[in-house]
């Protein structure tokens, strides 16, 4: 009996069923690994790590955040990695160091007075406070050195904000003015050239007027330049005074480094922090991530410009993708009669979905940027074209978003079609029987009913757009954009280059000079992007499934 049964097990092909099951398990395992790796590496980045002190047999001391144990590739000996930071004190400018386990004397120690200092430049500093030289701020309070330092930093930053910050605001305003005046000068120059060449009718009076205007503009330019030079001088004065406020730090080997307080972003004592303090630190870091600008060639600081660029990009994309997708979807489901045309459109939709994104990118470059943008430039800003300055004729957020719009059209089409298809025929027939026209049926009955499905399409399209990078790389994304792609004046900043979360990952993970130091930032960016995309997709899927259920019940 038993033997027969086991024979049947093989004869019936049960193991094959199990083999197909293995394929599914492997797929699920890989997926889980991906999510876990991103989560573990991403979520842990901001948690303050304890700083360990390792003493070696030869008397040397290393201070750093313990990273991992490993085996040396060549010698096969046990070793461990520290993030020692203090890049500027290291002869090789390294943040990370490997040490042999066998050289270690005793256990790691965790001294409580160790300070981790985040700086504007050169990464973190790990060490001890030796002396605080705060000459330019009122009395600093605090019981311990660390709290006194924290107070001094806060006061220095406040002074910096009130003194230099206002100047910086003014100078950036002046820079805008200067740019505008330069464009105005170009325009006047171009106008008078056109008249001189006889390409535009104009009399001497006109030329004289332009000449006078030119003089005025040039004077204005001079004036702005002077003002801004003065401001820069003033700023330098303030800064050099503030830079006298500094702290002398010592590392584990006793080497000292004087660090101006204005260069310090924040300090913390990881070995002296309780659980709530660590949570607070974590929250403040997340807040910084979401709102601050990046520092140190994007490997530290925040992601605000990239997040803003991504959102702006998706927002602009919607203007191309949604109307076109909805129209095409409605056409396929409600208007087209089965035939060659529908077949062709369907093939086109499928192809549109299958064209590699890089091909969209190159199309965007050739068509949107150079043809459409170039033409716009020559209409709106002929004077800038003559001077070799491109406004629309170079990569910008508007072209990137239109490229992405085209790329996401099929996603919208498929969802719209599905949403309309799920509505029972009876609903349409009822509406038409009551005398409504087809369009009225569509607008008043079908679209409201299909709206969750259409919404699904929109969200999926946005998720797809958030994750695409390749087409952006050739249509206007940059590693560091000086200004956000938005403005109150024409062209509203749409011509500007922008930053993007996905490109940020590529850039800091692969183009940055110090990949090891950049890794935490890449993981955190990856986590953020993944969360955004997966959240959008999940919402879309839930919406769609709900809608499907709704009509399944109704159609009964």
């Amino acid at each position, binding site marked *: 009996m038993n033997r027969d049964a086991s024979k049947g097990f093989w004869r019936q092909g049960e193991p094959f069923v199990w083999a197909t099951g293995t394929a599914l398990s492997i797929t699920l395992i890989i997926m889980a690994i991906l999510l876990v790796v991103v989560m573990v590496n991403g979520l842990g980045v901001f948690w303050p790590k304890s700083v360990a002190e390792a003493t070696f047999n030869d008397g040397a001391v290393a201070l750093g955040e313990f990273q991992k144990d490993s085996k040396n590739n060549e010698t096969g000996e046990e070793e461990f990695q520290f993030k020692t930071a203090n890049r500027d004190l290291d002869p090789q400018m390294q943040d990370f160091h490997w040490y042999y386990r066998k050289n270690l004397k005793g256990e790691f120690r965790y001294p409580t007075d160790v300070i981790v200092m985040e700086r504007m430049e050169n990464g973190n500093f790990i060490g001890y406070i030796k002396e605080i030289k705060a000459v330019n701020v009122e009395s600093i309070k605090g019981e311990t050195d660390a709290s006194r330092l924290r107070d001094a930093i806060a006061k220095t930053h406040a002074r910096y904000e009130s003194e230099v910050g206002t100047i910086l605001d003014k100078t950036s305003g002046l820079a805008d003015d200067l740019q505008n005046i330069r464009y105005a000068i170009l325009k006047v120059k171009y106008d008078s050239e056109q008249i001189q060449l006889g390409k535009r009718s104009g009399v001497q009076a006109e030329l004289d007027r332009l000449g006078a205007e030119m003089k005025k503009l040039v004077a204005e330019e001079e004036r702005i330049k002077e003002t801004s030079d003065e401001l820069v001088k003033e700023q330098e004065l303030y800064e050099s005074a503030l830079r006298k406020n500094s702290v002398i730090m010592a590392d584990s080997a006793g080497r000292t480094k004087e660090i101006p307080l204005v260069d310090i972003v924040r300090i913390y004592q990881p070995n002296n922090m309780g659980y709530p303090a660590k949570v607070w630190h974590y929250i403040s870091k997340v807040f910084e991530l979401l709102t601050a600008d990046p520092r140190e060639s994007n490997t530290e600081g925040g992601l605000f410009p990239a997040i803003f660029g991504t959102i702006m990009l998706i927002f602009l994309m919607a203007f191309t993708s949604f109307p076109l997708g909805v*129209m095409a979807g409605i056409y396929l489901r409600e208007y087209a009669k089965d035939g060659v045309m529908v077949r062709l459109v369907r093939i086109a939709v499928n192809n549109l979905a299958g064209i590699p994104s890089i091909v969209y990118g190159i199309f965007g470059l050739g068509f949107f940027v150079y043809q459409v943008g170039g033409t716009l430039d020559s209409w709106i800003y002929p004077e800038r074209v003559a001077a070799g300055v491109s406004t629309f004729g170079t990569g910008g957020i508007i072209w990137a978003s239109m490229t992405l719009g085209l790329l996401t059209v099929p996603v919208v089409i498929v969802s719209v079609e599905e949403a309309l298809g799920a509505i029972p025929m009876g609903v349409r027939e009822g509406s038409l029987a009551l005398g409504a*026209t087809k369009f009225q049926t569509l607008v008043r009955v079908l679209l409201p009913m299909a709206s969750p499905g259409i919404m699904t399409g929109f969200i999926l399209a946005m998720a797809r757009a958030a994750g695409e990078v390749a087409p952006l790389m050739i249509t206007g994304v940059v590693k560091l954009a000086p200004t956000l792609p938005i403005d109150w004046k024409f062209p509203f900043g749409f011509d500007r280059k922008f930053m993007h979360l996905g490109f940020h990952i590529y850039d800091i993970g692969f183009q940055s000079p110090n990949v090891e130091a950049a890794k935490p930032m890449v993981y955190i960016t990856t986590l953020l992007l993944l969360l955004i995309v997966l959240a959008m997709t999940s919402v879309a899927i839930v919406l769609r499934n709900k809608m499907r259920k709704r009509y399944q019940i109704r159609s009964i």
Partner: protein
Amino acid sequence: MAIDLKKSVSNKKTIRIAKLWDALAKYIITFGGIAVIVSVVLILLLIVSVTLPLFESSTATPVEATKLADSVVKARPMGIGVSMSADGNFVTSYVLTADGEISVINMRDLRVIGESKVKCPGSHEDARILHATPYGQDQFSLLWDNGAASMIEVKLADKYDSAGNRYIAHDVYTRAGIEKVTGGSPVKSIIRKSEEGTVTCAVLLHNNKIFIKRIVREEDLLGDIIEKEVSFLLEKDIPGQVTSITMDEQGSFLFAGTDNGAIVRWAFEDDQESAPDAEVTTAFIDKRRITSLVMIFGDVSLAVGDEKGEVSTWLRVRSGDSGARKLRKIHSLKSHPDPVVDLIPSRRNKLLISLDRGGSAYIDYMTSERHLITVTNDRPLAMVSFSPRGNAMLGLDEKNNLIAWKLHMEHPEVSWKTLFAPVHYEGYDEPDYVWQTTGGEDFEAKFSLTPLLFGTFKGTLYAMLFSVPLALFGAVYTSQFTSYEFRRVIKPAVEIMAAVPSVVIGFLVALWLAPIMERWIITFFSALITIPGIFIIFMLCWQRLRHANWAKRIERGYEFMALVPVVLIGVFVAYEVTPLLENMLFDGNFKQWLFDGKSSCWLTNWWSGGMRYDQRNSIIISFGLGFAVIPIIFSIAEDSLTNVPQALNAASLALGASRWQTVWRVVLPSAIPGIFAAIMIGFGRAIGETMIVLMATGNTPIIDLSPFNGMRTLSANIAVEIPEAPVGGTLYRTLFLCAVLLFVLTFFLNTLAEVVRENLRKKYGRF
């Protein structure tokens, strides 16, 4: 009454407006549908239109042709030159005559706008020029009738005067000169001045000897410049009458062609005191007369014109085992009907003008072997010259008519052959497929798409090896064997997997997986054996266990959960045996073994080595790309399997078939077209995926199937190169060609898949 009437009027109006809207909407919405087709066509048309100029034929348009006045050509013309402004509006030429006069002529009105006199070295005012050899667009090596030789440079430059009017300035510089050629009566001279200032003068003499004089400039230890003069005669080992000579720009070697088809080469060292040894090559076995020799721009290739009208270029390549370099014919350009009399190379790229005795000039591009333009004239041309910008050509016929042509040659370096066939490039020992786009000024750009196509298919192939089995079996399992509840979870999960941005996958496989894989590559390979092994052991156990009640529940669609530990155990076993295997089979270092093939184990010592292990390799790609296409293949295959009518399934089971037999014999065959479509679409997606390959391969364009190194795909190539490609340049257009290839490939795959699915839908729509 009146109210009713009003109402009906307003009703009519409402209806009319509604109908109008209806009609309008119909058009707008139809437009939306058609816009989709239009965009696909537009995308294709646009990218194709950008690539078209690559294959445009070149043209030469005569712009000006006039007879030179006798006052201009008082003596025999010895050399000509031309310059055309970038906009093509101003053409200026100059004529050098035997009396040393240079007349600069505005070609528009033939007005002489400047004159200069070239001085003979040693201040012989009445010396006349015997022979002038042009070099490039503006240099002439002159031989004077009093035995002196000199080298001059003529520069034409666009300038603006204070009133903003454009004029052409010309300058004539004598760069080098020697006062007396000794050893015989001279026929022809070539003088070159190197960057360091070393002057090399080679003069062909009537007695078939070549007089060499070198003035070497050197810096001594104290930093003073010392000049050293050496002169000697080249006379030994010349197999026939020398007909032409040529030298490189630095004056470091000399080629001579003879009347019996031999080419002789001499190389000069800086401290050369006496005649160096000659390297003789019998170039043509039929002993034809070599009529013209010239170095192609870059001084690597030698162009040879002969009496049969053939034009060929030669390279010194390493041949055989000896490693000695020998001159070998590489490119054959278009043959003339008449003997070649002169060759004029461009000084910007590998263009070459050849002039035959019949007076027609051919313009050819060496690397692509493209014949670009045939220039003929009513009267035979005696002399031709290129403009420095390469946009114009000037010819002088026997009757002193000066003719200028505007040249339109946009992308001469590209042909179908250079794009897809192996080409023998300079510096290579054999023809090869190479993609290399950046280099020095005299660099030969190499635009072979073959390695990119190869890389694309290689990456896709490895990705499919990984993803197709996983996705298809997973789809079979999900659609046929799992429970309904579970299927409702797994489908959205796979959709979410599809939404993972490729940049995230690329980053993870490149920066997280690649180092791990490098360390644990043996584990990976052993897992390929241990997972199936553990699976079989598990199956053997399971046939005993399955009768338990708890086990029966698992067999109702939860097998995959029991299998997760099985897979993990398989990986763990592989991990445990790794050090053992690596020590036993590869002497403890797999990468070393891969590279040199040294092993003490008989199982692995057959390998001869020579393979490098790159961290970012095809295995990494197969994981990354595979992960990206699994959800695509999975969902389409799952759909088509689920759509197989339940009736078929039920009938098979009712007839007594087991669940696997039903799937294998009934469901799968019915769904085959859908599965095919799934694979096609997955294939198309893998072909075009950019970020993953960009990040997870080294992006080196090599042709090598090895799984341990990377590749460069068409898509990654576009992403890598387009930022550096000047708009409208050859690279820019070639990258658009890459995009066209990608478009066509994916269009083909997607259309095929769509047609198959359409038919499938129709087939099962009946049930």
